[in-house]
């Protein structure tokens, strides 16, 4: 327990620094955009409705979706900029997070600022005109000072929202306090999850109190109080950003990982090898499946592990299944030709989608294959991970066998296994390299029609690193060196409830067993 807490604290300076940088930039940008917009809206009733309705509409988009939507948009813009100016930019990480959070912060600032300005006593406004103020002087000397407490209250609300929503920038590749939550949820490290929640809540509380001081200063007309609050904020942001100064220099290699234990372990394994080869390494974890490949092709990631079947169906859009070796061969040629992406080779194990049941249940129903399952399906509940049901693999299996389940439920992978052991699901879409299959003695249903494509774990290298000898020499020994049992054991050591290891520890244990070449 103490060890995990220590691990969490060790990561805090980096995570907190990015979280503060991201939230503060988004809030600042939000204020800079919203204030002039609110002034314009308070002047023109015709503008007021569309502006406030637009901001409300943005607020109704789930924040995670808003963050995700900026990725393809920026990718397209980056491609345009590359075509026109010969210079693209990163569509992953800071930029999409910043833009989404800025939009998200705007509503409370807009609404309060417009209300604050419109709430100024008409007699005071008439007096301002009467003494000979220009509209500009009236705004800056009378309306804004009088609306300041209401505007500050809006900024406070926006700050709390932004700091909370910034945890969701982790899946688009931006380091934040959300890294604790997403990684913790995946590896069932509840200390990490709680630590991430607590850290973000404390940050929000501190920001809220300091902004509250500024607000009170504006309301009570005590400039000293407002200055105190603003100084507190400035010092807090500066201290939080201090550790980032060291992260400023560009990492030589960016290692990517999707959002599950195996990916974290393999990323650590590769990162460790690259570091020992003298490279600087930065990690981008918790990436969505589609995001990871496109980021690699665009050069934002240098290396990550994907699975042949996923690339075959999702990237190449193929529905056929010519067999394990043939898929790998065609994939290697096709990805190189299309995107310049290098398939370094298979690590030696498959992480295939596998339909899995509890042994007692499978025996009672007499189910051993997917064909048997189709017969019993109308009585059964399928538990799947969050993306399986929208993937082509599911469509292929369903087309081949006709699996009309009574109900289908989606879970976080961790909870999917819980649902199976608890009986909420009768069959789940598991992964063949998952340590929990062996540990819980679960039954894998066979696929006689070959509907599920092979899923060899392959190391992918970005176009710009295709000729990087240091990278290739460091990672080449991993090819064919990880049998499925080794991966299952490593995954289980991270996923199990008691005595769990961190992904880095699991990676070290695995490294020790890899034969030196």
């Amino acid at each position, binding site marked *: 327990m103490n060890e995990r807490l220590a691990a969490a604290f060790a990561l805090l300076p980096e995570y907190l620094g990015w979280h503060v940088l991201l939230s503060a930039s988004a809030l600042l940008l939000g204020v800079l955009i919203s204030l002039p917009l609110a002034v314009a809206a308070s002047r023109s009733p015709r503008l007021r409705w569309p502006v406030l309705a637009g901001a409300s509409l943005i607020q109704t988009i789930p924040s995670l979706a808003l963050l995700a939507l900026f990725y393809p948009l920026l990718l397209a813009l980056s491609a345009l900029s590359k075509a026109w100016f010969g210079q693209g930019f990163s569509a992953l990480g800071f930029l999409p997070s910043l833009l989404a959070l800025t939009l998200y912060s705007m509503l409370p600032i807009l609404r309060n600022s417009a209300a604050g300005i419109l709430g100024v*006593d008409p*007699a*005071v*406004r*008439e*007096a*301002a*005109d*009467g*003494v*000979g*103020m*220009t509209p500009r*002087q009236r705004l800056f000397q*009378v309306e804004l*000072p*009088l609306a300041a407490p209401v505007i500050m209250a809006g900024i406070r609300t926006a700050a709390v929202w932004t700091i909370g929503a910034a945890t969701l920038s982790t899946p688009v590749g931006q380091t934040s306090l959300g890294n604790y939550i997403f990684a913790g949820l995946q590896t069932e490290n509840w200390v990490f999850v709680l630590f991430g929640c607590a850290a973000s809540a404390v940050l929000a509380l501190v920001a809220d109190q300091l902004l509250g001081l500024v607000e009170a200063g504006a309301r009570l*007309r005590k400039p000293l109080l407002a200055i105190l609050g603003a100084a507190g904020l400035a010092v807090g942001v500066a201290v939080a950003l201090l550790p980032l100064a060291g992260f400023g220099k560009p990492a030589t290699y960016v290692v990517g990982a999707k959002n599950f234990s195996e990916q974290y372990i393999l990323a650590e394994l590769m990162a460790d090898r690259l570091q020992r080869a003298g490279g600087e390494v930065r990690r981008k974890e918790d990436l969505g499946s589609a995001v990871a490949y496109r980021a690699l092709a665009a050069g934002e990631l240098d290396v990550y592990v994907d699975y042949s079947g996923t690339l075959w169906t999702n990237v190449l859009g193929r529905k056929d299944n010519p067999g394990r070796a043939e898929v790998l061969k065609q994939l290697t040629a096709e990805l190189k030709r299309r995107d310049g992406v290098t398939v370094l080779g298979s690590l030696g194990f498959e992480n295939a989608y596998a339909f899995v049941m509890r042994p007692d249940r499978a025996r009672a129903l007499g189910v051993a294959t997917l064909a048997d399952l189709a017969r019993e399906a109308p009585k059964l509940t399928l538990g799947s991970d969050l993306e399986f049901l929208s993937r082509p693999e599911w469509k292929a299996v369903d087309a081949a066998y006709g699996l009309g389940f009574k109900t289908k439920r989606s879970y976080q992978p961790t909870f999917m296994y819980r649902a199976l052991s608890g009986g909420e699901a009768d069959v789940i879409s598991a992964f063949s390299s998952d340590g929990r299959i062996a540990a819980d003695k679960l039954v894998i249903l066979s696929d006689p029609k070959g509907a599920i494509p092979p899923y060899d774990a392959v190391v992918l290298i970005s176009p710009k690193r295709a000729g990087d000898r240091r990278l290739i020499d460091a990672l080449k020994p991993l090819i064919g060196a990880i049998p499925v049992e080794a991966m299952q054991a490593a995954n289980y050591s991270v996923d199990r409830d008691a005595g769990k290891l961190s992904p880095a520890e699991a990676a070290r244990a695995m490294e020790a067993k890899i034969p030196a070449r």
Partner: protein
Amino acid sequence: MTAAIELSGVGKRYGALAALADVSLSVEAGQFTALVGGSGSGKTTLLKTINRLVAPDAGTVRVQGEDVAALEPPALRRRIGYVFQEVGLFPHLSVGENIAITPKLLGWDRAKIAARVEALLDLVALPQEVATRAPAALSGGQRQRVGVARALAAEPALMLMDEPFGALDPLTRDALGADYRALHDRLGLTTVMVTHDMAEAVLLADRIVVLREGRIVADGTAADLLAKTADPDVRALLEAPRRQAERLRAKLAGAA
């Protein structure tokens, strides 16, 4: 000599409603003019066309010979004092800062502004120590004295007042009215004051202009109007204070 204020053919419509219809009026420098009429008669609209808080649809307004439509409104307003019933002191500024506002907008230097604020507090009979207080800490009468001081700060020759004493209790109102009339004479101001109270108009003004439905229906000294006006409404309006005074006297005599 050009008139201090000259309105010719001024009209203003709000939708179908004519607030002012073809109003012409000339005010000599040094005159104290009262604009009298019921609510909706157009008296406030007329006043506000002079400092262009209202832009007329028709006609021209000249102040000291200049067409106000050709001037920048803020520049025009900085040379005209404006006092209204709600006062509109800036709640986030001290009394002294409120009084100093127009000189500050005109870019006076600090020492000159400080001396002017001090002089104005004396002029409107307020103690010097109120300068640092917030407007909210003053009584209604004191607040309006600050309003008058603020209007006089940049030494305007022309003062526009819209029911300036309307919200005050009768005693304060009487004292403030008399004090202001004395200031008007001492500083040689030209004053146009809107009121619905004929007694106040008769007591303070040299000239009474009566408006009804956006038109001038009577114009002259109190005595002139009483002698010449045939309009029964105007007569009734003029006689009201006298009748009221007589009734008061009779009641008080009977009680004694």
